[in-house]
């Protein structure tokens, strides 16, 4: 290590944290092309619905990560900003004169503006502190507004929520957004735009200061920045993008209810973001895609999907606080050293039995559930394409044995994997 303190700006490699400061266009172009091509690969209507849901969650999760990952503020009531933005958009949809005067793709901006408005009010007192106090206030305010939705019927529509019709907007180049595919491209446009804006924002001094305040508020204050105002700016920006997500939700589903505001939705977005990884900009994107897939696919297969999602979440917090993005990025040094091949065999030897073992545990869980909750006389259950009697001993023995053996082998090979991992990470120094 040299003790050189200044860096030479003419050499990109020496710029401070060179990788994170450089702006590359390539991933964005790839993402845009992928978004355009997706409907040609997955043509069914349900696939479009899932993808719309996914992109909305992507925007929302990225907005959430502006707080959690980049600003270090843990919010338990962020669904409120998306929800209020969505409700505002819904009301605009129902004001036929105003709604007919602009094209539909502009609508989410109004959601964003309402998100900003609410975030400015709440942020005025909640951003004084980060950490626990901020989390508590966000929870309290979230609960307050969610509870208000039943009382303030004029705005929130009470129990049944409010609904509207997106097709009354001014035609956008002759398009009235009657079909799912039109809405898909509208959502895709916004997801690219919002993600790019959020990315650029995280590269501005405001975004950089948010990181500084997250890591060391005291030092940031000594440098002359008000930690409170820096947090406030992040909070308001996050409220804006959350509101945009809410507006897109309104366009997509044409109905908003109390469910869009409540703590459960706020919890889901925390889960999504953390699962994806808060340390990297693209983490929440991975989280949103994986979670939406898990939610839609797994919930068709099993009633217990929320249980599995919860277990996955707790396991992520305990063992991989970097989330999926963190796990992926762990491998970058290995690839740079050219040692990725050394890891394939140990990975297969450990992860395959582990996966089989976990499936065995899942089978036990499903069987227990069936045993306890199926109606009397209904002894048959179908699991992994086999139908059997859950009240006999044999399937339990098989599932138990699979679980034990799978996890046992994985555990035995784990030390080997760790050695291979260490070797793959250090070999570069030796050469």
């Amino acid at each position, binding site marked *: 290590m040299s003790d050189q303190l200044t860096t030479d700006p003419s050499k990109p490699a020496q710029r401070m944290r060179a990788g994170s400061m450089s702006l590359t266009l390539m991933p964005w172009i790839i993402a845009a092309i992928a978004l355009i091509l997706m409907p040609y690969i997955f043509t069914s209507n349900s696939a479009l619905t899932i993808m719309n849901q996914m992109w909305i969650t992507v925007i929302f999760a990225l907005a959430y990560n502006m707080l959690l990952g980049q600003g270090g503020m843990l919010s338990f009531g962020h669904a409120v900003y998306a929800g209020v933005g969505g409700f505002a958009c819904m009301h605009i949809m129902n004001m036929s004169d105003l709604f007919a005067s602009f094209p539909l793709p502009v609508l989410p901006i109004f959601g964003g503006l309402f998100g900003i408005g609410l975030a400015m009010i709440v942020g005025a007192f909640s951003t004084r502190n980060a950490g*626990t*106090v901020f989390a508590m206030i966000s*929870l309290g305010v979230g*609960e307050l507004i969610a509870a208000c939705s039943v009382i303030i019927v*004029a705005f929130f529509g009470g129990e049944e929520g409010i609904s509207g019709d997106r097709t009354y907007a001014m035609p956008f180049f002759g398009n009235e957004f009657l079909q799912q595919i039109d809405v898909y491209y509208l959502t895709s446009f916004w997801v690219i735009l919002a993600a790019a804006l959020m990315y650029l924002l995280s590269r501005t001094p405001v975004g950089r200061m948010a990181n500084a305040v997250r890591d060391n508020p005291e030092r940031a204050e000594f440098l002359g920045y008000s930690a409170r105002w820096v947090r406030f700016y992040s909070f308001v920006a996050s409220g804006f993008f959350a509101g945009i997500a809410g507006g897109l939700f309104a366009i997509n589903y044409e109905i908003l209810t109390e469910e869009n505001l409540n*703590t459960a939705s706020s*919890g889901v977005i925390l889960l999504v973001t953390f699962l994806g990884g808060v340390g990297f900009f693209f983490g929440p994107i991975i989280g949103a895609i994986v979670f939406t897939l898990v939610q839609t696919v797994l919930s068709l297969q099993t009633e217990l999907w929320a249980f599995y999602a919860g277990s996955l979440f707790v396991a992520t*917090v305990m063992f991989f606080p970097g989330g999926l993005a963190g796990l992926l990025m762990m491998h970058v040094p290995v690839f740079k050293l050219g040692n990725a091949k050394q890891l394939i065999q140990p990975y297969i030897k450990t992860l395959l039995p582990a996966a089989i073992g976990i499936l065995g545990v899942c089978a036990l869980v499903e069987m227990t559930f069936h045993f306890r909750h199926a109606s009397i006389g209904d002894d048959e259950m179908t699991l992994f394409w086999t139908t059997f009697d859950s009240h006999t001993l044999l399937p339990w023995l098989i599932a138990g044995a699979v679980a034990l053996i799978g996890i046992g082998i994985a555990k035995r090979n784990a030390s080997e994997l760790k050695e291979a991992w260490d070797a793959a990470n250090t070999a570069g120094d030796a050469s």
Partner: protein
Amino acid sequence: MELILVNIIDGLVTGLLLFMLSAGLTLIFSMMGVLNFAHASFYMLGAYFAYQISIALGFWMGLLIAPLIVGVLGAGVERYGLRRVHQYGHVPELIFTFGLALLIEELVQFIWGKNQMPYSIPEVLNFTAFSIAGNSIPAYKIFMIFISVAIFIGLLYILTRTRVGMIIQAALSYPRTVEALGHNVPLIFMGVFGVGTALAGVAGVIAGPVLGTFPGMAFVLGSIVFVTIVIGGLGSLWGALVASLLIGWITTFAKSYNLAMSDVFNAVGIATPENLSDHWLRDLWTVTSPQIADILPYILMVLILIFRPAGLFGKRHS
């Protein structure tokens, strides 16, 4: 006048119940600096365990055993979960307890199903203790008050008068020094976490028959408990007591007196607008106090946070 007395008793029951939860939560907070989101989940586990035990052994064994199991579970969570996550910082700790709360709710649904459990008041206590002007006060409420007060006095005694309590108090303020004196501070932390969750378990055991034993019970009470300790001042035991009673009484009184917002406005001298059904503030005019009783604690919390951010009894900013 008589109604006021009845409401005072009702509010006291609610407040003391809240206090049993918030006392443990605030102790844990002042100890580890982390809010245990799953605290109300331990309260729920207490109710479910007590129900399961009461089927086999009766209510009283449930009251005795269920909190012990919950306490051991809580200590286990601290030892094998929180202590592991602690190295990553405070925010992951909060997220961990949040995830745990989700998981416990799913787990309870998994084991006991989504329906309410037929967990009921024991026969011995199922009678009217006394009545005030025609309003009967069930003996179970009096029993709840006695249990909570007894626990509070016991807790206060242990914390302020015994050697163990002194060590705990010292460990809260100066963990390093206490460790240097030869005490096992992680063990103390684990113990306090266990006792805190056991207290929540007791609250669950005695509240289960009255408030209902169902998977949503943690969620219903959970956020109110956080509001309580924020209002009282994070980490202050007395603050938790005062805030619990305050919330108990405010919500009870708001529910039993049907105070309409329009009457309030009229009394101040603002006339009711003529065509109310079209007015954009119509919801504000038609709101009544029982409707907003459940959100009053949140409004109180927001007001406290704006005007006195440290809470009623909080000493300083965290």
